């Protein structure tokens, strides 16, 4: 098998696991964990394509991954702050019960 294909398949499995967790679990924190897993799968793709691509000396893949990690860290901080604020008001982190805006 092409070595790049192995990394891409691993990334696809990781993305699918994160997606399955994000859409099936009830706890908002686990939903955020699933989103983090999906972001990491995308990062793995960047690194794999950089390593096996045409011009690895340009370092575009690594720079993109560094920026992506920083943005994901900001996203995690804001997301967890939102979950804590919602918990303080609604006393729950169950996304099935947070339906007060449902028409």
């Amino acid at each position: 098998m092409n070595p790049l294909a192995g990394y891409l398949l691993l990334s696809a499995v990781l993305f699918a696991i994160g997606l399955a967790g994000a859409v099936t679990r009830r706890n908002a924190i686990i939903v955020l964990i699933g989103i983090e897993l999906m972001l990491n799968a995308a990062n793995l793709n960047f690194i794999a394509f950089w390593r096996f691509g045409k011009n690895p000396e340009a370092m575009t893949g690594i720079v993109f991954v560094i920026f992506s990690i920083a943005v994901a860290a900001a996203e995690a901080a804001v997301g967890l702050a939102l979950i804590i604020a919602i918990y303080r008001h609604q006393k729950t982190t169950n996304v099935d019960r947070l339906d007060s805006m449902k028409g």
Partner: protein
Amino acid sequence: MTFTFYLLCGLTLAGAVAAMSLRNLVHCALSLAVAFGGLAGIYLQLDAQFAGFAQVLVYVGAVAILIVFAVLLTRGSEPANEPIYSTRWFVGLGVATGVFAVIASAVMASKALPLGPLSAPTVVIRDLGDQLMTRYVLPLEVLGLLLTAALIGAVIIALHDNPPKTGDAK
């Protein structure tokens, strides 16, 4: 495909599956740290040393601990006997399986995947720093601004609002 790849692959996937399926939220956060650690190993195997160590510092060090803190701050929100999956979990599982099937079939059918250079690319951290300070200096500054704004926003969102004084109109 070497033995270390399969080892790290198994570690990462086991951590990810455990993070998505365990009932105890602290166990989920720790499994997530294991999955992130496996991914960092894969980055190191792909000769991306800086990305691997950044992954360890940011994800295993910061994000996993942040999630543990959030779990502890929202502790006791759910009764223990409540199901952890939503009622129509099979729909979500089907969607995820479909997405995986589409991506995997695209990867397997692709004939244009590059085989890559046989020798590892020689990237040193000094080159990376040079690039960040010359070619990518504007994105770096914007990123710093974004991080500052996001962290201030997170603090403001999570601030305790003062309880309304008695006598105030609600």
